[in-house]
């Protein structure tokens, strides 16, 4: 259900320490989210596209992600140019270039942040990101929650599917009826109860193996020289992008 299709690879970005990538992604996406003019947004867009290119992802999968994000920006392009701005709103048809510019800016920013996350975060597995976050000082409980939600959602989904199949096999066909709603209520309730029981058994299994609230990662590589250089590069990029916002630029 939840795969990590981008995490397997051997590009330069895949080999970087997750901590470095987390800091870099936070820096770049923050600057991009706050930029309010086209030039920094466009520069950021091209830089993150370059990063994504370096990570050598599967083009079909990237396209799918781009499409799903741009479904939202499409709506902005359809509405903003005709609704944005003050001034002449009394006429029936109203076109605002300012609105078009705004839609364009949002599209650049959201795609840039998407590229940045695909290139930097999706190239690490969730487990590595979780441990990276913990080492960066995120509270242990939150790391634990992240890692276990990721692992358990899959199992809960399987449990739900199994119940749903059992219902289907006994002739249950969803319809707009009280019987359907009641059945779904039972399915959800039963999934909840079963997941709870399973969580308890897994907790027992962990206690039996000496778990004391701390997840110890098996691989603990330290950042290398390449990692630090890459961090400096990412942070300088963020600074340059941020700096561009302070210059009086034409767009």
């Amino acid at each position, binding site marked *: 259900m939840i795969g990590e299709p981008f995490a397997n690879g051997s590009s330069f970005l895949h080999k970087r320490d997750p901590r470095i990538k987390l800091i870099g992604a936070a820096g770049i996406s923050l600057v991009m989210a706050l930029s309010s003019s086209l030039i920094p947004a466009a520069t950021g867009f091209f830089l993150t596209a370059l990063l994504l290119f370096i990570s050598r992802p599967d083009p079909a999968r990237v396209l799918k992600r781009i499409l799903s994000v741009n479904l939202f920006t499409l709506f902005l392009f359809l509405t903003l140019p005709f609704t944005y701005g003050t001034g002449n709103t009394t006429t029936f048809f109203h076109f605002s270039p300012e609105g078009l510019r705004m839609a364009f800016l949002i599209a650049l920013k959201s795609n840039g942040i998407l590229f940045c996350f695909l290139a930097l975060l999706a190239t690490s597995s969730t487990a590595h990101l979780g441990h990276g976050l913990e080492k960066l000082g995120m509270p242990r409980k939150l790391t634990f929650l992240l890692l276990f939600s990721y692992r358990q959602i899959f199992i809960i989904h399987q449990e739900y599917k199994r119940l749903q199949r059992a219902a289907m096999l006994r002739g249950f066909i969803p319809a707009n009826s009280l019987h359907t709603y009641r059945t779904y209520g039972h399915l959800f309730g039963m999934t909840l109860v079963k997941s709870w029981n399973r969580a308890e058994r897994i907790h027992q299994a962990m*206690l*039996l193996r000496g*778990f*004391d609230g701390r997840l110890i990662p*098996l691989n603990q590589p330290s950042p290398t020289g390449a990692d630090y250089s890459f961090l400096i590069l990412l942070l300088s990029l963020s600074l340059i992008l941020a700096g561009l916002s302070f210059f009086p630029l034409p767009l």
Partner: protein
Amino acid sequence: MNKPPLLELRDISYSYPGHNSPLLNDVNLQVTNERIGLIGPNGCGKTTFFQIIMGLLRAQTGEIVLNGKTMEQEKDFRILRRTLGFLFQNSDDQLFSPTVLEDVAFGPLNHGLTPDAAKDISIKTLEHLGLKGFEERITHKLSGGEKKLVALATILSMQPQLLLLDEPSNNLDPATRDRLITILRELNLAHIIISHDLDFLASTCSKLYTLEDGKLSRCEQKQIHSHEHIHPYGNAPHQHGV
């Protein structure tokens, strides 16, 4: 002075809240290096019995004694859990890490081994169980038999002195079941096995107990007898008593 037994249960009684008849009633047992099989009807408290031994449930009366020391608090049971390994009935409850290697190394890491040492012992355990090359496999995508063997590996990597196995041969195909029998015979570890599979118990245990109506009782010694049985895969040649 005699060395105390590895594990001793003294007058263990347990009943679920709201139930009148106790599930376990003054159960006594001593284990040092025996290989024990435990039989009993469904719902007679066999799994509860294991959970009590491991300190996951607390008996209402009675004592659990490990190497002569009575287990009282959670702290004591933490020590006990390093010595005893419990294989769950359902391997899905036992495997929770993304990859096989991470799961097998989980126990050793918690016991304070360095990542390198934990990795080392995990790989050795997997190799020993014939699971070489499974290190990076995803745990929830393994087959039922593979899950059972990996779950066993997660326990063996903690180097226990006594294994508690809860219906280990359930849902295993004949080949995996035979493999498990061979592994258990070669391990040379004390164990208590809960099972309804009498042939499995006969080939892995030297003592049999039954748990019925809350009482644990020793069965007669094994007797040579003949019985009718079905062979899987009908006409294939086979041997008895190997």
